[in-house]
C-alpha cells in the first residue's frame, strides 16, 4: 500500500527505490511503469500525464527478477525481439547492428546462438537487460534484477550495470532491498518505508544525512547500530549515557538540546578494536558471532542489553563468547528522537 507519494525524478538519473520487503518499492515501480494503476494520483513522463496510458503504449522497458526470456528463441532473437515486434520497422541489417552493440556491452557476443536454458543464470539476466536496452527506451524499470544470482555475479553485475546505464537521457528506476546496490549504482535514492517515501535525494546525501532512524539503520551496509541513550547538557557539551559503563562527553551540532532519552546511532565501521590515538570511548563487549562477509568481518557484539555490529576490514575469526574491549569513535554519532525516529543532531565533526 502506498500513501500520498510525491516524487520528481530528473532526466539522466539512476534512481534506486530502496526499502525492505513489503515497503512498497515493487508496487511503486509497477505503477510508474504502467503495469499497475494507482487508486488515485497521477504519473507524468516528461510533463505528459500517462496515468491512463497502458504499458504497451508507453515506451518503456521492464526487467523482472525472474530473467524472463523466450525459451525457444536464441539469445540473439530474444534481444532482437523488441525491435521485431515494435511499431517501427527495422531492416535486418539494422537489427543485427543494434543487437551486436548491446550484446557487446553485456558480454554476450559469444553465446548469442544459444538458447536461454543452455546458458547460466547470470547470462540469462544479462540477456533480459539487453532486451530492455535495445529499445533505447527513455524509461527503464528494473525489479531486483540481481536477486536470484549468486554473490560473485551480483558483485560483478553491479559495477557493469552502473557503467551500462551511465550517460543516458531518460530515467532508470531500480527497485532493490540491498543498500549496496543503491550505493554502487544509483545517482539518487528514494527510501521507502511502509508505503511512504521517507527520504529522497542524491544517493550519497541520503546515505550521509539520513532524516530518520529507518533510513539511517537500513541504508547502511551493514546496518547502523541504534540504541537508547540519555543525553544531558554539560558545560559546553553534552553527556551521553548508554549504560553504566558507556558514558562520555561530546560536542553536538545543536545548542540547548533538551535533556532526554534519545536513540544513538553509530555505523559499524566507526567501531574499533583498538584506539592508537587514545581518543575513542572504550567499552566491554562479548562476541556473539564473527561473520565473514566478502573481505570483511562483521563482529556481532553484546554489551549488556545492547547489541552492536563492528565492521573489521579484514578476515579474522573469533570464538563465540570471546570478551574484548571495543571502541566507539565519538566523531561519528547520530542522535535521533526516540519516539518519532526523526534525526535530531550529530556530533560536531571536522572531517566529512
Amino acid at each position: 500500500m502506498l500513501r500520498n507519494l510525491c516524487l520528481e525524478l530528473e532526466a539522466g538519473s539512476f534512481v534506486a527505490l530502496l526499502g525492505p520487503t513489503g515497503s512498497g518499492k515493487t508496487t511503486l515501480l509497477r505503477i510508474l511503469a504502467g503495469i499497475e494503476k494507482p487508486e488515485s494520483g497521477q504519473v507524468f513522463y516528461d510533463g505528459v500525464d500517462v496515468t491512463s496510458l497502458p504499458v504497451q503504449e508507453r515506451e518503456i522497458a521492464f526487467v523482472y527478477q525472474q530473467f524472463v526470456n523466450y525459451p525457444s528463441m536464441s539469445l540473439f532473437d530474444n534481444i532482437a525481439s523488441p525491435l521485431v515486434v515494435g511499431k517501427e520497422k527495422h531492416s535486418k541489417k539494422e537489427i543485427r547492428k543494434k543487437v551486436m552493440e548491446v550484446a557487446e556491452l553485456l558480454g554476450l557476443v559469444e553465446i548469442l546462438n544459444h538458447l536461454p536454458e543452455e546458458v547460466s543464470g547470470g547470462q540469462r539476466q544479462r540477456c533480459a537487460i539487453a532486451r530492455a536496452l535495445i529499445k533505447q527506451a527513455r524509461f527503464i524499470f528494473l525489479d531486483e534484477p540481481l536477486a536470484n544470482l549468486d554473490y560473485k555475479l551480483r558483485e560483478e553485475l553491479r559495477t557493469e550495470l552502473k557503467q551500462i546505464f551511465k550517460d543516458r537521457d531518460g530515467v532508470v528506476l531500480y527497485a532493490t532491498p540491498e543498500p549496496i546496490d543503491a550505493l554502487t549504482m544509483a545517482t539518487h535514492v528514494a527510501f521507502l518505508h511502509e508505503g511512504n517515501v521517507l527520504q529522497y535525494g542524491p544517493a550519497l546525501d541520503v546515505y550521509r544525512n539520513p532524516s530518520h532512524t529507518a533510513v539511517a539503520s537500513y541504508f547502511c551496509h551493514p546496518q547502523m547500530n541504534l540504541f537508547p541513550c540519555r543525553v544531558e547538557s554539560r558545560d559546553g557539551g553534552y553527556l551521553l549515557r548508554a549504560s553504566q559503563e558507556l558514558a562520555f562527553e561530546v560536542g553536538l551540532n545543536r545548542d540547548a538540546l533538551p535533556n532526554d532519552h534519545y536513540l544513538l546511532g553509530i555505523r559499524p565501521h566507526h567501531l574499533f578494536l583498538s584506539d592508537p590515538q587514545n581518543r575513542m570511548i572504550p567499552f566491554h563487549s562479548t562476541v556473539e558471532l564473527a561473520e565473514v562477509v566478502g573481505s570483511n568481518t562483521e563482529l556481532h557484539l553484546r554489551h549488556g542489553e545492547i547489541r552492536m555490529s563492528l565492521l573489521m576490514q579484514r578476515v579474522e575469526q573469533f570464538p563465540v563468547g570471546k570478551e574484548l574491549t571495543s571502541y566507539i569513535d565519538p566523531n561519528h554519532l547520530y542522535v535521533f528522537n526516540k519516539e518519532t525516529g526523526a534525526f535530531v543532531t550529530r556530533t560536531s565533526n571536522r572531517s566529512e
Partner: protein
Amino acid sequence: MARIELKSLTHRYASSRKETSSFAIENLDISWEDGTANALLGPSGCGKTTLLNIISGLIRPTGGSVLFDGVEVNERPTRDRHIAQVFQFPVVYDTMTVFDNLAFPLRNQGIEGKTVNARVREIMEILELDTLANTKTRHLNPAEKQIVSLGRGIVRKDTVAVLLDEPLTVIDPVLKLDLRRKLKLVQQELRLTMIYVTHDQHEALTFADHVTIIRDGAIVQSATPEELFLYPRTPFVGYFIGSPGMNTIRCEKVSDRLKIVDSELELPDEIAHKASHLNGTIELGIRPEFVETSPDEKPNWNRFTVRMVDHAGAYQVLTLESGSLRIKARVEDHSSSREGDSLWINTPHDRTNVYEDGELVTL
C-alpha cells in the same frame, strides 16, 4: 565424534540431461579432524553433495575409502554409521513437542526414561530450546525447526559427525544471523565434527575453521578462512573469496626480467626478484585492500588514472587504469578521488602473491 577421512576417493556419475560432461570425483584426499567446524564450498554441481552422500553411506564410491577414526566403513550401511544430517528443509515430527522430537532417537534405542530425560534437557539447554520444550514443532519457525533437526542428530552420544547441506536455504534473512550463531556455538561447546556444505562463501567462511573449496569434483584449496583470503592457491580462489576479488596481473619475462604484460610499468625490485627464477606463465595477485594509494607522487610508486569510483558505505572501491592494465583498490569511505584523477599506487611485495602456471608459488 570422530575424525573422518576420504582416501583416494573416486566416483563417477552418469551425466544428467542438463550437464554436457559426465561427472567425476577423481582421487580425492580429504580429512576432517575430530571436533572441528568444516565447510565444503563450491558452485552448484561441483560434487559437494555427492561427497556428503558418500560419507553418510547413501552412495557407494566407485573407488577409494571412507574412514571413521582410521577404520574403513565403505561396507557399513547408513544406519550403522551414526551420521546426523541437517538438510535444506527441517526434518521434524510436526505433531510432537520439541522434547519428544529430541527424545525420539533415544527412546527408539530402548534407553531408560530417566537417562533420556536428562540427556534431552542437556541438549535443549545448549540449543537454547528449553522454553520451547512443550511446544509442538509445527508452531516453530523454520530456524527453530532446524535447530530441533540438529538436536535430534546430536542427542545420541554415538553420533560420529554432523553433515549440513545448505541448512540456511529456507531461513528468512532476519533469522539467519541467530541460526548461524547457534550452529557455531553448539559446534564449539560440544566439540562436534561438523561438515557444512554450501555454495555461499559467506556461510562457509563464517561457520568453518577449515574450508575446502571444490570445483568440478576436485579440491582447489583446503585452508582456514584467513589463509584462503591471504594466500589463495589459485587466481580462481583469489577471485572467488573476498569482495571484490583479488587483482590478477599477467606478467612475462622480457630479456630475463619480469615485466607486466602490455604495460610500461616497472615492477618493484622485490617482486621481480621473487619471480626471477620461474619459467612458466607468471601472474601476480594482490587484493584491493592491500593496494596502497596516494594522491601525491611518491618515489618508486606508479601513476594510475581513476576510472571508476564505487561507494560501498564503509569504504570505496576505485578502478584504476594504466595503459591496458586495470586494478582495483580499496580506499577509505571519505576518499575524495574522482574519475580522471591521478593516483600513485604501491603494491607491497609482502602482500603480493606470485602464481606460476596458475598455482601459488611459496618462497
